[in-house]
């Protein structure tokens, strides 16, 4: 089973790295931020699998923190960075 957990964790890391292409490509800032949101979820799954593979329960707390903070950066994006862009568009 450990081999399955680790292979899936590795696979998830690969999908995360592939998703970076969307961050580089854009085109809008929302696309980039959404990719970062997906990375957060992928990281949660990855950490949970590692916790199971190494039989190390405290790692689940790390995943819990990831899950709790999944929204903070994205909310900052929507409320601040993107809102500022909007104002710029209006002023132009």
């Amino acid at each position: 089973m450990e081999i399955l957990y680790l292979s899936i964790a590795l696979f998830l890391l690969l999908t995360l790295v592939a998703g970076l292409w969307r961050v580089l490509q854009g085109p809008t800032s929302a696309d980039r931020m959404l990719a970062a949101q997906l990375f957060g979820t992928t990281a949660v799954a990855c950490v949970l699998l590692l916790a199971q593979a190494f039989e190390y329960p405290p790692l689940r707390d790390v995943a819990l923190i990831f899950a709790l903070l999944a929204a903070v950066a994205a909310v900052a994006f929507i409320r601040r960075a993107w809102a500022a862009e909007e104002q710029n568009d209006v002023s132009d």
Partner: protein
Amino acid sequence: MLVTEILSSLLLIAGAIFFLAGTVGLLRFPDVYTRLHALTKADNVGLGLVVAGLVLQAESWTVAGKLLLIWLLVLLASASIAHLVAKAARKKGIELWK
């Protein structure tokens, strides 16, 4: 191999496939709204299946509860963010792909 092990392996693999589908959607779909659609599948179903697979292996009810809590938190975050991004994108006038 126990039945639960086979079942949880299948769930984990299915979860990984959903993550793959989410990433492919993120890379291949044409605009921000369709990408949101792909993304929430990975968030909700992909992580849900992975969590379900791990819950079957959990050593106690507290562990299972914590895993479910993590999934619910990610659900809450991703659903809200998807809604907020889509709303903001509409307001900014990003057009729908036809």
